[in-house]
């Protein structure tokens, strides 16, 4: 006997009423995409579950991947058996013995979906429980707080036995909330923001500002690597690399030092918004966290945000730095983010930036330059790279 299928439970999707079907469809497609290289599996959708029929494929690797797919609340490795009591008993014993059970307590929880089944739930519990008890030494039953719960679900076509539950990442299936542009700097915060945006069902496209010669290949590589990590949680991601040198130099010349940071952010937001329009996204996601740096005070955000009324999603806005770092470590972006290279936010950073800038002032300083033209030029020259988890540079791959 071996694990025959994986039973996937939805989180919040269950509350989606009439839209539920769309959410489930999307989740199924995301699962399809992530498990595409397992040729033998079959994915079945029902109203409240998705089943993956393993057909002998590696259950461990599949369960690793499922833990990265948003929209999955939890899943269990299940043994499928016919709905005959002797078969059920044997299968339950097998599933139980697959666990680390020594010295633990257990109980059986039967659920009888098929009301025609000859035994009621109490009788199923009793029969399966005593079968396990007589075949496993030193085992105790605890019906209130069992360490292992053997669930037996009797349906008319088959019975499913599960006792190993694994939590998924929760959230909503990526793509069910539309698309957002993620401003990705290469620092610690923005990839985490991207992760949270995806968790709420957003598909993301990343925008990175590149200022050669002030920032170099390695800082660009950081962003490529970070984007690749994020593809683990969703589909392929488009990365837009904006040439930003000229605008930064103009700001440097034109805007007083203590306002240059605010102005830079405004330009970045305007450019991102232009790319957003072209890519038909409806929001912009940033890694801003309230009060973290000068440009993230309430006053600064007020002055920066003036340039657009596109919704700006700031998943980290109320989070503390240690909390952000924890998430970064968990999702494996931390070690990439801390590679020590300059990015467009660290160069030209003024010694004493305004923490309480005034809108009118920054508008006045900017009014002497035709930024509109510079922005259009930058958008036109933006390079788009599609990042997928498996795809690398082919020439380099051949070396390995």
């Amino acid at each position, binding site marked *: 006997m071996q694990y025959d299928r994986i039973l996937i439970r939805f989180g919040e999707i269950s509350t989606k009423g009439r839209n539920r079907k769309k959410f489930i469809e999307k989740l199924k497609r995301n699962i399809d995409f992530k498990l595409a290289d397992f040729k033998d599996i079959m994915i079945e959708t029902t109203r409240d579950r998705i089943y993956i029929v393993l057909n002998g494929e590696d259950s461990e690797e599949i369960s690793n991947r499922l833990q990265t797919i948003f929209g999955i609340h939890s899943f269990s490795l299940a043994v499928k058996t016919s709905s005959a009591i002797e078969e059920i008993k044997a299968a339950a014993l097998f599933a139980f013995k697959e666990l680390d059970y020594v010295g633990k307590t257990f109980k059986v929880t039967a659920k009888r979906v098929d009301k025609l089944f000859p035994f009621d739930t109490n009788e199923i519990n009793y029969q399966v429980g005593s079968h396990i008890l007589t075949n496993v030494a030193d085992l105790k039953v605890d019906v209130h707080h069992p360490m292992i719960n053997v669930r037996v679900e009797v349906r008319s076509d088959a019975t499913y036995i599960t006792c190993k539950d694994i939590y998924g990442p929760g959230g909503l299936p990526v793509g069910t909330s539309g698309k957002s542009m993620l401003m990705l700097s290469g620092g610690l915060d923005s990839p985490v923001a991207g992760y949270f945006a995806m968790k709420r069902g957003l598909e993301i496209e990343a925008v990175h500002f590149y200022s050669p010669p002030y920032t*170099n*290949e*390695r800082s660009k590589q950081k962003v490529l690597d970070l984007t690749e990590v994020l593809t683990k949680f969703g589909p392929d991601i488009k990365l837009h690399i904006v040439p930003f040198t000229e605008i930064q130099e103009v700001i440097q010349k034109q805007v007083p030092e203590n306002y240059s940071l605010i102005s830079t952010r405004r330009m970045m937001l305007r450019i991102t918004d232009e790319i957003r329009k072209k890519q038909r996204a409806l929001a912009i996601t940033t890694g801003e966290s309230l009060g973290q740096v000068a440009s993230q005070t309430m006053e600064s955000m007020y002055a920066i945000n003036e340039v657009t009324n596109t919704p700006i999603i700031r998943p980290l806005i109320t989070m503390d730095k240690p909390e952000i770092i924890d998430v970064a470590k968990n999702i494996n972006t931390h070690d990439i983010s801390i590679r020590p290279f300059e990015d467009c936010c660290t160069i030209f950073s003024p010694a004493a930036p305004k923490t309480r800038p005034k809108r009118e002032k920054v508008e006045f300083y900017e009014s002497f330059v035709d930024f509109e033209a510079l922005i259009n030029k930058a958008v036109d020259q933006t390079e788009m790279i599609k990042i997928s988890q498996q795809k690398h540079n082919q020439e*380099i791959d051949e*070396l390995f």
Partner: protein
Amino acid sequence: MIYLDNSATTKPYNEVLASFVKVAENYYGNPSSLHGVGAEAEKLLMQARKQAAELLDILPQEVVFTGGGSEGNNLAIKGVALKHKHRGNHIITTSVEHPSVSEACEQLKEHGFEITYLPVNHDGMIELEDVKNAIKDTTILVSMIHVNNEIGAIQPIRLVGEFLKIYPKILFHVDHVQGIGKVPLSFKDLGIDLCTISAHKFNGLKGTGILYVRSGIQLSPLISGGEQEMQFRSGTENVAGVVAMTKALRITLENKERTIEKLEAIKCALIEGLLTNPVISINTPTLNSAPHIINFSIGGLKAEVFVHLLEEYGIIVSTTSACSSKKKMPSKTLLAMNKGEALANSAIRISLSGDNQLEEVPSIVKSINEATEKLGRVMR
């Protein structure tokens, strides 16, 4: 020519050589340089580290690129000894180690370290009991060869690793140089803290290797300088060599199962053939031995002369290990196995690789038989 000295070194795969040349030619930057040329080289190095980690089922930061097997063994042993000498000065190893382990230990002796060499039984295997009895309060390291390079005996790494888990402060180093690709070993599951492999034993190039250093383990570096390789091994990285090695590792591990099966078949046929020769006695144990090494003694005949004679038949074998064969010493491993001076003096090693073919066996056996006969006639 039939090349049967693969435990000394293997022929590099053509694809591996091609990678080496291409990287050396096109990505010659110093990975530590800031400019783009350096960044390109660094990217290759990172990809190599990631791929090696995936293949070995360890983390990228646990891969330390070295200059080969001897360096890896020295770094592991001396690195632990120097870093942790405040904990104790006792090291346990076996009497059948490669010189890069035993000599490193001998060197440490001069610096006040105490070395216990575990004995082996007639099959060249250590006993877990002996490990248990050797442990002291001052023990800081157990270093053990996985597959013996002379006779192919496989040490009970799993047993020792499982046992050592109750001593978290005793580090466990495994010399896996002969085992990689031939006798699978899971670094993570067996409680191994340090593990050495060397590229030229799996069809990579000489001068490259990997030391697995489990995350969190501290080592004193042997080479200080620019702090490359997580500060464990300074010096500008051999990018072309490292890329070539990871390619060789990939090819080797991808074909592992097929290769092992093939080697087993050849080994079986060879032993069967050799056993028909009355002067030959097989030293490689029947059970628990690697699929690519067959060690046999030729009844008191001079091993060195036999190697040369066999070469005239177009067959390349060696006397014991390549590293000590020029010293004309009897096989240390066979002596440790209590085989006696005579057998130890006339030991021959055949070591196979995936390039060898089952069809070659009859002519190998025939040549060996002719050579022993000829040699017997002359020498007696």
